Structure formats: C-alpha cells, structure tokens
C-alpha cells in the first residue's frame, strides 16, 4: 500500500515534468541503444571470419567504454538540470510532511522507472537497429553478411549491467544533493538573486592566449617523429579545450563589459538589452556552450579524420594494387625474360584461370628495366615501346636511339637520356603512362620512365657490361597484372596456386624475385581496423550530436523560464512585441551560433595537424581530406541549424507564455 503510494507519486512526478523528463529519457534510450549496438557488433560472429577481426573487436570494446563514460557524464548533466528545476516541488513535499527519506524514496522510484523504461526501450531499439549497424560496418570493411536479425544475449546483459551502474550512480548523486539542502532552501532556490557577472580581464585574455597558442602549435607542429607529433597534437588539443572554456565563460563577459563601457554603442535600442543580458547569459551558459563547441569539434574532427583514414588508405591501397592479381618477375638475366619464356609463363597462368572458367580482364602486361647507378641524379626505368603502345592503345613510333619520357615529379629537361655510355635522344613526352604494380610503389620525384624501341638490345647490353652486378646494378622485370572477376575465396585459391607455380619457376630459373600479390590477400587487416575506427567514429559522433542537442534543448528551456518575467517587464515599460522578438532573436543567434563558429575555427586550425597525423599513416591525400572535411562541416552546421530552430520554438512559447504574469 505504502510502496504503491510512492510509486504513484514518482510516476506523477515524471508525468508532470515531462517537458524535462521526456528528452532525458529519449537521451537515455539513444545512449543505451548505441551501447547495445556496439557490444552486439563486438560479440556477433558475422564478422568473425574477416581478417583483422581482433582489431575490430578491440576498437569496438574501447569505443564501448568511451561511450559508457560519456553516457555517465551526459546523464549527470541532464540529471543535475532535472533536480535543479524540481527543487521547489521537493520543497513542497517537504512542507507537506515528507521528510528527506520519503523524498528519497520517491526519487529512487522515479529513477527506477526511468531506468527500466530506458533500458528496455534502449535494448529493443538497439536490437532493431543492430542489423543496420552490422550491415553498415560490414559494408565499410568490405565483408559479407546475411539478412537475419539476431539477438546477442551477452550484449543485452552487458548493456543492462553497465547502465544499471550508471543509473545507480545518478541516484546516489541526486540523493546526496537533496540530503544536503533544507526545505526552505529547496523552496527558495529559484529566487536566489543573481550576481552580476564580473569581467575578469586576466582570465578573459588568458583564454584567448591559450586558444591562439593551441592554434599555433597545431599549425606549426613539424614532423620529425610520429611520437613528437602526437605529443604536440595532445598539447594543442588540451590548450584549445581549456581556451574554449575560458573564452566562453570569461572572455565573452569581458567583451560584453567592454561594449558596455562604450556608451555610444551600448545605449542604442538594438544593443542595450542584448549586450547586458548577454553578459548574464554567457556567465550562466558559458560552460554549456563551450561543451557544445567541444562536442561539435570532436564530431567534425572525428568523422573527417577517420573517413580519411579509411578512404585514404583504400585509395592508396588501390594505387598499390590496381588489379586483383599482381605478378612480378625480377631477374638480372635478360635471357630469362625472352619471348619464349614469357609465353610459357603466361600460358601457365592462363591455364590456371581457364580451369576456373574465367579469363584475365584488364590486363597489365609490361616489361621494364630498372637501372640504378650510384651518384646519378635520375632513376631510369626503361620500357619497351611495343609494351607501352599495347598498354596505352597508342601507335607511337620511334627510331632506334630515340626515346619518350614520362616524369613523376621533377621535370626532365635534358635533351637526351644517358646511361652508361648509351644515349637516347628525347623526342617528346609520353601522352600518358599506365603504371601498375610494383612500379607505382617505387616512383619518386626523380624517377623517369624512358620508353625506347630497342629494349631487348638494351638489356643485353647492360647485362654484358663490365662491372654489371658489382659496381652498378640493374634489374629486368616483367609485370603481369590482371583482374579475374572471381569471388574472394576463389581469388585466394588462385593466388595460392600461382604461388606454388612461381616457387617451381623460381627454382628452375633462379629469379631474383618472383612475387605474386593478391589484393584480397593483402587487404583485410588494415581495412578492418580503419573501417572499425571509422564506424566507431560515426557511432560516437551520433552520440555526441545527441548530447549537444540535449544541452541546447535544456538551455533553451532554462533560459525561457528565466527570461519570461524579464520580457514581461520590458513589455510593460514600453517595448513593442517586435522589438522584444528582435532582441531575443539576436541574442539566441549569437549564443547558439558562436559555438558552431568557434568549432569551425577549431577545425580549420586542426586541419594541418590532422593532415600531418594522417602522414604518420602514410596518407597524403589532401584533396580527399579537404573534401571530406568540408562535407562533414556543412552537414553538421545544417543539422545544428535544424536543431536550433526546433528548440528555439520551445523558448519562444515559454517567453511569450500568453503574456500573463507568473
């Protein structure tokens, strides 16, 4: 009977405060669903077959902990808001004869109700969305999946356990707060006179200095070693976070104060109300706004960098493995690569393909010689004209002793290619150059591709030179790359077969190097990891955006309540409705778009740093990064605007409140 009474009071409390409770529960549900999804993916066996599953699971596990800690922080913030706005209600209970123990019981039941609702709804939502998440992850890392919906009991257990702990922590915190206050202080807490914000010049300026310092480090951090770069990045991030908080809290008040001191600016209808209430608003809401700013920055940086990591490496990877199969024959004996042998090798590979019912597609078939002599400015790669023509589909013709060149970095401005006393007259630049396989891996700025008509003569001449293999060196290569159109496991099988065949060849002919690479075989691990990181980046971003939305909503709600009597007074003193609305608009716009602008500024300054960090991963694809960053930035800004519009309606309805007093 008595227990039922408390339960009813608790349910009533939630219903009556639904304007505050509803978003809180939604946030809980979203966080729990996200957590379930992450732990589901960790346990699911759909991904257990793909290469690098260990890394993905590790990444997801880590992400799960990050999410749990973050959930705790967000819910604490929301809960503090909830408790604060309900102190009057609790004070009333207290006056009606409930002691703090009774109130504690009501709160405990409220928390229990919220916990049960959110965990159930969260897990159900998580289960419903887990398939999409799984498909998304699988798509990102390039594995295969089926379309069966599955429930992972271990994930359900994990989720329930973690969030039970989170809710118990919340409850303890609330009890502590209520326990520490008297009934009168509970009742009056809303009417505490607010101190005017003091402008602290030292603090305000130091905030700006911290920001500038952080930006400076981010922009100038050099690249001597990955560790030093990471350390610099870490310091820059800390400086910028500290700078953001201090600037938002102290710097903005300082700015308002400076503006107020400028009388001809301050005493204008358009500025008077806005500037003075802005100082208060920033003092109250500076921390929340700084948090929003940091969250947005995190989302921007996280998505753009993880997307670059994934798509950038994939791009590089495809540069390295342009075809499914890459065969490289390397020898120092020109006879090994004569016409007859090449035909034999090729036939063997084709037979292997034929037995699987496919023919090579997109073939890259090219001989070349890499000639390195010590002290030379240029690295020459010689290519036979006939192979080049065959690959490019061109019909260029050259006389003996003439050459076409193609450069990869520095311009080759000499009139002739000279190598060991041999000379080819440069008659022009090749229109294009099709490079695949090993060549693409080894090109540098000083690499020159030399296309010559007398390739056979060249390699024999080189091999016959005195000192060959001792004072100078050259390799004769044949690259044979192709796509098969086989499924992944078929490719791996073929790859194994070819390797066995090449091992035999190697014993027979004494190749220096005889490699077969399969894109399928090389790809897995790295992509899985980056894919996992990217996926986690998206999930965490969603959570961060949700948290930012919640903070915005609560801010609008608080300020709406606080500002209502203020605008009522202004109306009585003789401010028109449109003047009030204009003033509200300008304040809200400044307050809410300031964090977004600052976040975008952070991103701009973080850009060079992230770029250098990506270099650690051997990524130097600036256009891709720029494009991703701009897209992500625009997307987040758009989303923010939508959220702002939606929540500011709450504010307007609170402030206008029908124009009634109290």
């Amino acid at each position: 009977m008595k227990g039922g009474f408390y339960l009813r009071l608790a349910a009533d409390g939630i219903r009556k405060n639904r304007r505050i409770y509803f978003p809180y529960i939604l946030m809980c549900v979203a966080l729990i669903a996200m957590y379930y999804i992450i732990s589901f993916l960790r346990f699911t066996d759909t991904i257990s077959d793909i290469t690098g599953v260990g890394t993905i699971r590790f990444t997801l596990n880590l992400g799960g902990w990050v999410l749990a800690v973050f959930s705790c922080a967000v819910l604490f913030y929301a809960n503090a808001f909830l408790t604060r706005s309900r102190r009057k209600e609790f004070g009333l209970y207290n006056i009606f004869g409930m002691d703090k123990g009774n109130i504690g019981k009501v709160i405990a039941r409220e928390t229990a109700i919220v916990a049960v609702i959110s965990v159930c709804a969260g897990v159900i939502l998580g289960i419903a969305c887990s398939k999409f998440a799984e498909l998304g992850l699988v798509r990102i890392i390039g594995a295969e999946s089926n379309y069966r919906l599955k429930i992972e009991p271990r994930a359900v257990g994990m989720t329930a356990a973690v969030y039970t702990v989170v809710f118990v922590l919340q409850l303890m915190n609330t009890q502590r707060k209520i326990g520490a206050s008297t009934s009168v202080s509970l009742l009056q807490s809303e009417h505490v006179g607010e101190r005017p914000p003091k402008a602290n010049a030292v603090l305000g300026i130091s905030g700006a200095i911290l920001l500038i310092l952080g930006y400076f480090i981010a922009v100038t951090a050099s690249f001597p070693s990955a560790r030093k770069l990471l350390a610099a990045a870490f310091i820059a991030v800390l400086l910028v976070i500290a700078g953001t908080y201090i600037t938002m809290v102290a710097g903005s008040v300082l700015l308002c104060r400076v503006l107020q001191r400028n009388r001809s600016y301050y005493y204008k209808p358009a500025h008077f109300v806005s500037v003075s209430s802005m100082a208060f608003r920033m003092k109250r809401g500076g921390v929340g706004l700084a948090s929003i700013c940091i969250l947005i920055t995190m989302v921007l940086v996280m998505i753009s960098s993880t997307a670059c990591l994934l798509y950038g490496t994939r791009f590089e990877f495809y540069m390295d493995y342009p075809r499914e199969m890459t065969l490289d024959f390397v020898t120092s004996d020109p006879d090994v690569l004569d016409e007859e042998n090449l035909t034999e090798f090729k036939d063997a590979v084709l037979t292997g393909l034929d037995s699987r019912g496919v023919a090579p597609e997109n073939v890259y078939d090219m001989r070349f010689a890499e000639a390195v002599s010590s002290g030379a400015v240029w690295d020459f790669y010689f290519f036979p004209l006939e192979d080049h023509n065959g690959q490019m589909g061109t019909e260029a013709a050259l006389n003996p002793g003439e050459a076409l060149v193609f450069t990869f970095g520095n311009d080759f401005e000499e009139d002739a290619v000279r190598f060991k006393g041999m000379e080819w007259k440069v008659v022009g630049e090749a229109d294009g150059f099709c490079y695949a396989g090993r060549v693409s891996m080894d090109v540098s700025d000083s690499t020159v591709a030399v296309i010559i008509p007398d390739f056979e003569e060249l390699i024999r001449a080189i091999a016959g030179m005195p000192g060959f293999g001792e004072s100078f060196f050259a390799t004769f290569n044949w690259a044979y790359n192709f796509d098969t159109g086989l499924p992944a496991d078929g490719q791996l099988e073929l790859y194994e077969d070819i390797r066995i065949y090449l091992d035999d060849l190697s014993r027979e002919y004494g190749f220096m190097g005889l490699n077969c690479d399969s894109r399928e075989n090389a790809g897995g691990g790295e992509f899985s990891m980056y894919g996992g990181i990217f996926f986690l980046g998206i999930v965490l971003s969603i959570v961060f955006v949700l948290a930012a939305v919640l903070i915005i909503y609560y801010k609008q709600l608080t300020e709406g309540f606080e500002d209502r009597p203020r605008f009522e007074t202004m109306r009585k003193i003789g401010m028109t409705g449109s003047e009030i609305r204009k003033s509200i608009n300008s304040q809200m716009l400044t307050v809410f778009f300031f964090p977004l602008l600052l976040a975008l500024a952070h991103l701009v300054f973080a850009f060079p740093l992230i770029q250098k960090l990506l270099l650690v991963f051997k990524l130097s694809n600036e256009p891709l990064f720029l494009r991703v960053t701009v897209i992500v930035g625009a997307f987040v800004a758009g989303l923010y605007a939508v959220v702002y519009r939606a929540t500011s309606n709450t504010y307007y309805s609170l402030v206008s409140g029908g124009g009634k007093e109290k």
Partner: protein
Amino acid sequence: MSLLEVSGLRKVYSTRFGGNRVEALRDINFKVEQGEYVAIMGESGSGKTTLLNILAALDRPTGGRVILDGKDPARIKESAMAAYRRSNLGFVFQDFNLLDTFTLADNIYLPLVLAGRPYKEMRDRLAPIAATLGIQKLLNKYPYEVSGGEKQRAAVARALITGPKLILADEPTGALDSRSSDELLWLFSEVNRMGQTILMVTHSINAACTAGRVLFIKDGVVFHQLYRGGSTNEQFYQKISDTMVLLTTGRNRG
C-alpha cells in the same frame, strides 16, 4: 480640460468558452486634473487592477472611453502603442519590475534608450531626479544589491525620467516595510508638489491618505470620493478609515 477623463468605462471578461461572464468594471466615471494626486481604493476583486490596465493601455475596455490629454489610447494603433506608453505614462509596480541584468542607472535609462535618446541627454535628465529621490550613490549597483525601498525609488526614477503626463502606480508600497513605505509616500508627495500628476491604486489607507483625493471603487463602479481639503494626513486617514468601514458594513447590509 482635465488631463484624464474616464467615462462610462466597462470591462467584461468571458471565460474561455464564453460561458461565464464577469463584469469587472460596470460604469466608471471620473476626471483627473493636471497636477492632482489621486488614490483609488478598493478591496481585492473590486476592479482596481483592471482599471489600471485599461488606463495603461495594456488592456482594452469593452465599453466607455478613456481620454488622456485629449487622446483616446484605445484608438492608437498597436504598433504605435509602445511609443505612446513610453512617452505619456510612467509606471510604478508593486514588485518593482526592475531588470536584474541592468544596473539601477541602466534600468532608469531603459525607456529613454528605447526612445533612441542620446546618452548625454539621458544623463542630464537623470541627475536632478536621482537627487530628488536620493539614489545618486546607488546608480551603479544591481537590483539584487539594494533594498526593496531603494529598488522602488529606482523604479520611480524610471517612471519619471521620460517626463510623463501621468504616473500610474499599482500598490507601490505593497512589497515594502513600513519605513520604506513612508519614505516612498513622502517622495510621491514631493514629486506631486513639483507638478507631477499621479494616479495610485492601493488598498492601504496609509498610502491613500497622502493623496489629494481618494476614489473608492466597489463592484465595478466609483462608489464614493473624498477630498483632502485642508486636513492633515492623520485627519485624512481617519476619514478614509471611516469610509472604508461604511463600505464594508454597507456590503453586509446589501
């Protein structure tokens, strides 16, 4: 011509679905001359606040007319209303209605800033008013830092600074202790002596007895009025008190 003429004023409130009609003001008629200090008395629910809201042009009457300085505020367009209110009326409220984000000086400047006056003019206007009200030293403080009486004096300064034709005061002593009340009422008399017309709504006899004339409202009509004539505050207090007793017992008889 009188500064303020109220004739046949009627205000009917309907409940939300039009079922219950409440007649807050039935037939109010009175005039206020330039330089007068008039108190309107009545019990809670007698229609005082409704009357004040209509005089302040915050609310529109159902019938009858209000003429302030030859103009009918009800005929002023909504867009011009705020400006009209700003330049013709000064308000003093029971709960001060000072903005806590402004210093007292800025609170006082607010109507002038909204009217777009230059800072120098505002400062020049404030100086004598602040001296009269004795708040020069408080001007840079925030409302939460000063006492209720000081807040109300700042609110009076805000009402005076536009040089309004009429000051409307709604229970100005309602939230003050007796000493602050007496100080404020004395200031009202001073301001009135300098020529400011004041209309005060109150149910405190102590406040009403400082006025030059008291109107009694009951059940939506002006029931009675008393002139101070030559009497002192104490004598006038007695007269008002007697009238109040009459009003109350009259209701019992009726």
